[in-house]
């Protein structure tokens, strides 16, 4: 009993700020405004299939780009000396010390039609790029914001790989390419799964990035939910918002458990 004592503040905190809101979401999703149990909200959420599809599609693209960009970085850093590694890791985390909104706004000023990027392109007599308020801008924002969450877990798995495994593979005849494809990459899959989870989940539920960089034209699930709660008198519908949130939560949980099974590793992957 005494050993459990220090955990009490955490349990209380989680109960108030995680469990209670979750219960509320479920209750709202399954009731009418006057308190009757109903499945109507959940069925109504089906109307937004396109929004769900767009959210998952963009998040998936962003996750794949993060993996393609992040894995080589994590691998390259893990092979450097200790001093280089600590500086590099700090530089990767450094932008995160700045406010999330500010970072995202900064991209607006870079990619907007009269922004920095197009000024440079104009100066070089190159055709202007129309990026702002397109899905590409949303993906760009997601990749920029969540890339460190891909790099860090992969890096921390690779750095802990037993060097003697690599020597054993070399000893058994594998060249550097085979050492990577047969040993290092398969053993780093738990890190890849964590990274994918940590990028995909916030990407799929973001609403700030799509609003600022996507111009709010193509609504994502996050925007949809926000609208139901903060959307003024006409749009205010917490029951529908909760239902949409619940549906998304279920889909994400299914995705993650499938991926954990697919990974098949012995290590547990932490769901966010």
């Amino acid at each position, binding site marked *: 009993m005494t050993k459990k004592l220090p955990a009490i503040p955490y349990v209380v905190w989680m109960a108030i700020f995680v469990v209670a809101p979750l219960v509320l979401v479920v209750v709202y999703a399954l009731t009418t405004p006057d308190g009757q149990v109903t499945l109507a909200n959940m069925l109504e959420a089906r109307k937004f299939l396109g929004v769900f599809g767009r959210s998952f599609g963009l998040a998936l693209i962003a996750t794949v780009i993060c993996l393609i960009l992040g894995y080589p970085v994590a691998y390259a850093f893990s092979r450097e000396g200790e001093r280089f590694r600590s500086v590099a890791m700090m530089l990767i985390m450094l932008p995160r010390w700045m406010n999330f909104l500010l970072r995202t706004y900064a991209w607006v000023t870079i990619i907007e039609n009269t922004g920095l990027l197009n000024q440079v392109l104009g100066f070089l007599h190159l055709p202007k790029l129309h990026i702002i308020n397109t899905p590409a801008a949303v993906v760009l924002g997601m990749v920029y914001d969540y890339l460190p969450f891909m790099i860090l877990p992969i890096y921390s798995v690779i750095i802990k790989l*037993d060097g*003697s*495994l690599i*020597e*054993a*593979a*070399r*000893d*058994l*005849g*594998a*060249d550097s390419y*085979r050492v990577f494809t*047969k*040993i290092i990459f*398969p*053993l780093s899959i738990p890190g890849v799964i964590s990274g994918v989870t940590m990028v995909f989940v916030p990407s799929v539920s973001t609403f700030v990035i799509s609003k600022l960089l996507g111009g709010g034209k193509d609504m994502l699930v996050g925007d949809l939910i926000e609208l139901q709660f903060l959307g003024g008198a006409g749009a205010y519908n917490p029951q529908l918002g909760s239902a949409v949130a619940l549906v998304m939560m279920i889909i994400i949980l299914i995705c993650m458990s499938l991926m954990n099974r697919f990974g098949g*590793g*012995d290590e547990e992957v932490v769901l966010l």
Partner: protein
Amino acid sequence: MTEKARIRLVDLTTAFDGEVVLDNINLEIKDREFLTLLGPSGCGKTTTLRIIAGFLKPDSGDVFFDNERINEVPPNKRAVNTVFQKYALFTHMNVFENVAFGLRIRKTPEAEIRKRVTDALALAELSGYDKRRVHQLSGGQQQRVAIARAIVNRPKVLLLDEPLGALDLKLRKEMQRELKKIQRTAGITFVYVTHDQEEALTMSDRVVVMNRGKILQIGSPVDIYNEPRCAFVADFIGESNIFSGVMPRDKLVTFAEQDFTCLDGGFAANEEVDVVIRPEDIDVTAPGDGAVSGTVKSIIFMGVHYEITVVGDTGEEWQIHSTDPQTVGDRVGLTLTPDDIHIMHKPASPEEEPVDYDADEEDEDDDD
């Protein structure tokens, strides 16, 4: 019988951060022999092994394999395989795939892979374990997978880096016999690294004793045990009484204030020497009967024998291993025959000095 040299190490010298780890190592490894590099930690034995495997380049000196210089050949192109200290098994593969790894890399046909892996697993007494995951195996089984994974490639030389270090005593003994059997059956040259002198003596055809980056003695286990070349070897290979003495002439040595007949010669007249006497060679007799008289200081029961300490009347301490118990405080005599007395040169350099890991064996006489 003259066997050809499989591997030759010529003038190998290596330093890490300015500290010399290997100092001018010269060694010939014969085809199909079981050679052991023996020494305390930091003596350079593992470094030597890593240079043969190709994981490390010597600062200077050459490595020859079948008379071909292989300094620049990367580990994946060498006809040697290694059994690592901590096995280094691939945890994401089952036993079969671990053993098949080297063959798959060499694009061996599937049918041959199946046959050779099955044979290697049988040799390592692991038949039926193919589908097991590595972490489901005991330490001894993992060790045997590591050996099977190496020998399946039919290397000309197998390098083993303290492969039994993590196993308990009983399993270690069992694996020693098994390794020796595998070495004979497969007809492979074994280069075995250990700090365990007993392991070295029981398994090897030849033992190379190393200390502080230098080779001190190369010889058969019997030679190394019976004719240690310096105090370090005598001390490291089994327990020893080491006394300081003088040789007035050949076959006569003076120590513990007495003259003893011995079998050694070839020293300068009145040269200062170290005298080594194995504890099990000394016989305890009635007081006054032996060459030396003394008093029993302590006795410890060790299982097979008693370890008895006797203080001679001239002050020196004798370690004796005997199956007969004695009583502390009793007067006893000690007998020695000439072939029990081994004469060595005084240490010419620090690495030849006796080890001080066991304070009991450090006699005051050494300080002369």
